């Protein structure tokens, strides 16, 4: 009945009161990225960040929690179009997904404001895929939104 879905899409849009060049730097310069990457309470030691911002270049950030736990994000830059577009490909990661491609698009809104859109396509694991095939994910998202 439903088409087999093997990928889940998420899209997040944010508008920042900051010029596009600044947002671009926040994504592409290690000392900038270190200041915001990851959940609150995690820090990103500069010596554990690799940002080779060019097509095929490596992306690696190891975040450290207050308790000393480590969490790594890694991947490869697939596209780099300064100052408006980054495509990042992440390899499979434990139970969560079998790889993900994220596209970051920065749009200059003028007056020092920038719209940032993140679109991720996540190749889901078998378990996740089962739910996606059931048409679950999108309606669940809508319900969750409704519940706030």
């Amino acid at each position: 009945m439903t088409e087999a879905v093997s990928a889940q899409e998420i899209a997040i849009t944010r508008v920042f009161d900051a010029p596009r060049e600044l947002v671009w730097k926040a994504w592409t310069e290690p000392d900038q990225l270190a200041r915001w990457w990851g959940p609150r309470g995690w820090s990103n030691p500069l010596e554990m960040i690799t940002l080779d911002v060019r097509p095929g270049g490596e992306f690696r950030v190891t975040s450290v929690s207050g308790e000393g736990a480590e969490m790594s994000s890694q991947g490869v830059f697939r596209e780099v179009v300064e100052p408006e577009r980054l495509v990042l490909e992440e390899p499979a990661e434990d139970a969560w997904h079998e790889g993900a491609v994220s596209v970051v698009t920065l749009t200059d809104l003028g007056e020092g404001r920038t719209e940032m859109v993140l679109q991720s396509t996540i190749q889901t694991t078998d378990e996740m895929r089962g739910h996606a095939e059931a048409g679950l994910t999108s309606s669940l998202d809508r319900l969750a939104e409704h519940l706030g």
Partner: protein
Amino acid sequence: MAADQLTTTFAALADPTRRAILTRLAHGEASVSQLAEPFPVTVQAISKHLKVLERAGLIARGRSAQLRPSRLQGEALKEAADWLAGYRGFWEDSFDRLEEHLREIQKGT
């Protein structure tokens, strides 16, 4: 949430009629007949769906024998949604920090 409970929750959510029922209940509690109205199925069929949703902890039902109004139990639904939203959550958290960071570095200029 335990894995078993998640499985039950997701199984309950996998049916379009049950999801529609939950969406309806998001607007407020309703009796079985009210819930059955928009669907081309019997009240008995809706009752069955409600039992599945109740077992999954997604809804709670009143005690009044006749009407037994159903209402949404946000907790289980939220936990299931959270589980799926882990990836999104990472970005949302990061972008909150990014927003603060961008504000911070512009203060000095």
